[in-house]
């Protein structure tokens, strides 16, 4: 029987927006477990909103610091104390990417040109944006369909104790399983929402889904 993986938003986020930590287990799940992969329309909408916010927040943070460095009075070669001072004076405490940028500075050579610092920051900004784009393209190629369901399935809604948007995601998965047949499991990277406190068992008994799998530990 065809084994189908129905991905929740957490899997899309983990696969596309983290470099390694959640990307690797999600990638491992996708390449080994299901014969076919589906996701839901609501999942994609949630993912798109999150990805836009996350990517804008971090690229914006890197860009803000990069422009501050470019507009600063620093020129030519910088030594370790210059780099420390540059961070102290030009890396704002409220910059959302502060820790990542600080980590990048730690990896720079002892003596480095300002232009090289700017170049590294440009690369970081582009890498963040590009990673999300490329990985979403990869997922889109692998996903058969982002399932859309018109039926509200009140029987499922009343039986499963989930909040929105998780409830609609679960209903879309149920509708998919009911419509196409086969073994459809809900693949999640959010065990707190879909696995813990017996939620996985409730989903299994109240829906046409065969079960819930936590991609981050599968």
């Amino acid at each position, binding site marked *: 029987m065809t084994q189908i993986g129905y991905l929740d938003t957490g899997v899309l986020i983990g696969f596309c927006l*983290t470099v*390694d*930590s*959640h990307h690797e287990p999600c990638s491992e799940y996708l390449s080994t477990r299901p014969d076919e992969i589906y996701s839901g329309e609501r999942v994609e909408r949630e993912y798109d909103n999150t990805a836009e916010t996350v990517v804008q927040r971090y690229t914006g943070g890197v860009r803000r610091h990069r422009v501050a460095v470019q507009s600063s009075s620093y020129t030519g070669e910088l030594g370790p104390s210059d780099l420390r001072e540059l961070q102290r004076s030009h890396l704002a405490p409220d910059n959302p990417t502060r820790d*990542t940028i600080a980590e990048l500075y730690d990896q720079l050579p002892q003596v480095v040109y300002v232009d090289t610092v700017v170049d590294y920051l440009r690369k970081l900004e*582009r*890498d963040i*944006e590009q*990673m999300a784009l490329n990985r979403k393209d990869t997922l889109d190629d692998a996903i058969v369909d982002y399932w859309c369901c018109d039926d509200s399935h009140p029987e499922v809604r009343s039986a499963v104790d989930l909040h929105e948007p998780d409830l609609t995601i679960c209903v879309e998965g149920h509708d998919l399983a009911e419509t196409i047949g086969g073994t459809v499991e809900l693949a999640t990277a959010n065990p707190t929402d879909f696995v813990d406190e017996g939620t996985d068992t409730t989903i299994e008994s109240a829906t046409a889904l065969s079960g819930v799998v936590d991609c981050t530990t599968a």
Partner: protein
Amino acid sequence: MVPKTVFHKFWSLSDRYAEAEFDTELGVPRYWYKYGELVDEQSVDSGFFVAPSAPWGGQAYKPVYDEGDGEFDLGRREQQVIEQTVEWALDQFDQWSARKLEAHQYRKHAPNEFIRSYSELRERLQYTGLDEQVPLSVYEPDGPDTNREVVFELLDQTVAAYPTEDPAFEPLSDAFFRWEDTARLLIEQERDFARLEVFLDEFVQVVSEAVLRFQFADGVDQERVAEWRTDGEACLERFESTLAERRSELLREREQSGVLQSVSATYDEMVLDDLTNDE
């Protein structure tokens, strides 16, 4: 008979001269736009000229001579100022093309250094044909590509000159810094100066409509300025979505640099922490 663009620039330069040289405000409604400083015809009584269609496709501006001087109700001093100003303008700019007048306006009267900077890049792209000129140095192994370097240096200048402290430019700042990095990406990946020229032109259009036209308007009817302000917001939104598409296209073709990978642990921790806290 003169073309519209020449007439407008001539008019605006004369008004500036009268103000600077004779401390006389003639009240010409001027505003900055893509092509330099222009005059808002809708805010003036235009009975003293006609502008029929011209053989070159635009409009030809001609004076109406039977309009008596008295119609304008000018004082003796204003009349003298106007006469001297016209004399000066003819002496300075007679036979100048619209392009030359525009370059002059940008160099002498641009409202700030940022506007001067991008216009310098624009001129360079428009008139020097960087596409056709392949510097000999690119044939040397690891030789510098001087045309690319020129463009990068001019882009750096525009970044350094961006008026971050000026609230008028605040709404545009994110779009500008994203645009600048995308322009650089375009040259790094495709070395396509002609495409950069179009891309810069689109940016100049949005600066003009989303900032310049209403922020640097002098004597223009207030209702019209308010209309421009509203149109400017929509124009910026459209530009942001086009920019996002162009940028994505270029990024999709790019190789990852490895910089994000080198800080992956800290980056992932930040993403997961933020997402957990946002829930």
